[in-house]
């Protein structure tokens, strides 16, 4: 009957570590159960591409199995893949990493983030993060023994973390700033000016910057600022990214970390004891993605952009004001006009109109008053979802009057 105990009891009994027992469950998880109980839902709550991995990349994966590439690779990842990645980062962002010492292939960027935090955090170290933010940031920091320090962002700052707000929270315990732009859940991107200010701050206070750039390729009408490419920042930035969003490869679990060799060495130490290496088949597919996948990326970005414009325009029209998201595949409209909190809004919308969005609160307290709508779904789906949301908003306005 172990599983009937409350988290607090479990912690007391020391069966589950206190850290894990007290870790709040993901706000998304809670919504998942409710969602599963409703049929025929149009889901705008999926955080992954609706495109299937391009065929030539899948074919490369199949070929690797056919040829019997079923053994471990080097801990750091296949040399060819690291070489391709080094060229890719140089080509796209003008930042050069040594393929042997400065790149580690991971099982998704999620593993990368976990490794980085475990490698740099001493108990009690503080890591500054924006809020709202990706659900794993605070959790992973806590699991690594650190303390997440939240910096609120809002519409006024276009949901970008500001250097001045960071500086106000720097203490002797501050170890790093963890940022992720383009951002999940807001779709915000960081401008050169904003990035420069954070870079200056990091130098001034001798801080590390962990830059999660998983959505780097999904930007619309702006250039992505690759943080380590800023002057003097390569040696104090740890770049985390992967193939999930750029090449629609979420289920393959393949990512990478690029950083100064001191960091990569430390990360590899943990990686070799815990993961050994990223799946071989997946690494072979990733090589193909880098060698011949540029057209796919461009096509997908163009398609996302059309849907993005459509969704943002409609959200504003139906009275859910939405700042313009210039990256990722999310819109983050304000629902304050409906006088509902984000969880009530999402729940009622799901039950009454069968449209799923993610309550902003799932991404931290500053996400309250907003919902995340993902436009990585077909245009007819987006159209129909917004028609239903329109009806829902009008109904709820009548109710509250």
């Amino acid at each position: 009957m172990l599983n009937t105990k409350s988290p607090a009891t479990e912690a007391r009994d020391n069966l589950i570590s206190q850290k894990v027992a007290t870790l709040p469950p993901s706000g998304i998880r809670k919504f998942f159960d409710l969602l599963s109980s409703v049929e025929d839902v149009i889901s705008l709550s999926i955080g992954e591409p609706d495109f299937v991995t391009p065929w030539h990349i899948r074919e490369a994966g199949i070929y690797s199995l056919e040829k019997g590439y079923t053994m471990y690779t080097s801990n750091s990842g296949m040399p060819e893949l690291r070489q391709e990645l080094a060229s890719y980062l140089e080509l796209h962002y003008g930042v050069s990493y040594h393929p042997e010492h400065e790149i580690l292939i991971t099982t998704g960027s999620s593993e990368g983030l976990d490794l980085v935090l475990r490698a740099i955090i001493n108990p009690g170290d503080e890591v500054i993060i924006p809020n709202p933010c990706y659900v794993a940031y605070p959790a992973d920091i806590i699991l690594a023994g650190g303390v997440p320090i939240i910096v609120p962002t809002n519409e006024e700052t276009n949901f970008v973390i500001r250097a001045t707000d960071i500086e106000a929270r720097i203490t002797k315990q501050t170890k790093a700033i963890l940022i992720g732009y383009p951002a999940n859940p807001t779709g915000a991107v960081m401008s050169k000016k904003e990035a420069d200010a954070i870079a200056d701050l990091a130098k001034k206070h001798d801080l590390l910057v962990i830059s999660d750039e998983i959505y780097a390729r999904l930007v619309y009408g702006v250039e992505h600022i690759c943080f380590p490419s800023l002057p003097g920042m390569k040696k104090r930035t740890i770049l985390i990214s992967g193939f999930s969003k750029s090449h629609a490869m979420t289920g393959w679990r393949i990512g990478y970390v690029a950083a100064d060799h001191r960091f990569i060495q430390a990360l590899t130490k943990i990686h070799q004891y815990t993961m050994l290496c990223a799946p071989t088949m997946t690494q072979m597919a990733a090589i193909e993605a880098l060698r011949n996948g540029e057209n796919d990326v461009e096509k997908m970005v163009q398609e996302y952009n059309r849907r993005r414009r459509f969704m943002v325009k409609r959200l504003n029209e139906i009275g859910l004001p939405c700042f313009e998201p210039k990256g990722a595949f999310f819109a983050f409209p304000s629902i304050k006009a409906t006088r509902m909190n984000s969880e009530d809004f999402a729940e009622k919308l799901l039950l009454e109109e069968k449209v799923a969005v993610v309550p902003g609160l799932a991404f931290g307290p500053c996400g309250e008053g907003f919902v995340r709508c993902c436009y990585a779904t077909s245009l007819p789906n987006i159209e129909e979802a917004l028609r239903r949301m329109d009806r829902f908003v009008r109904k709820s306005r009548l109710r509250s009057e």
Partner: protein
Amino acid sequence: MKEIFEILEQNARATPEQISTMVDKPVSAVKKIIKQAEKDGTILKYKAIINWPKLEKEDIWALIEVRVTPQRGVGFDAIAERIYQFPEVYSAYLVSGTYDLSILVRGKNMQEISSFVAEKLAPLEQVQSSVTHFLLKRYKEYGETFHLPKETNRRLPITP
């Protein structure tokens, strides 16, 4: 501008209003471009791709390889025109390789196609020979696949 046509190529029923939002251009400009394209033949026609086998009323189709003798002054164009004007001819291409014209022919039954070949195509003076391949199954046309399930939901309903 090219983007407007790409959208229409994917979905001919996209309205000027929808397209205008997708490409971030005023509706009037989009309408003007489409109108002009319809006029100058950039947009030939708006059609539906029908999955005929689904209606169990499939016509018979054949792909015919035709070897022809080109003519002085007009090359392959004159004979191609002679051939493609027949209503049985669905599409016609000049190709490189061991034959010259590749034509797709549509008929109600096998009889109709064989009489087209025997009575119309083969007797033409410039036609040296032809090889007829009857279509057995259609997998993909105009970039659309016929046999894959259209929208299978492989994704979880909510992911972070």
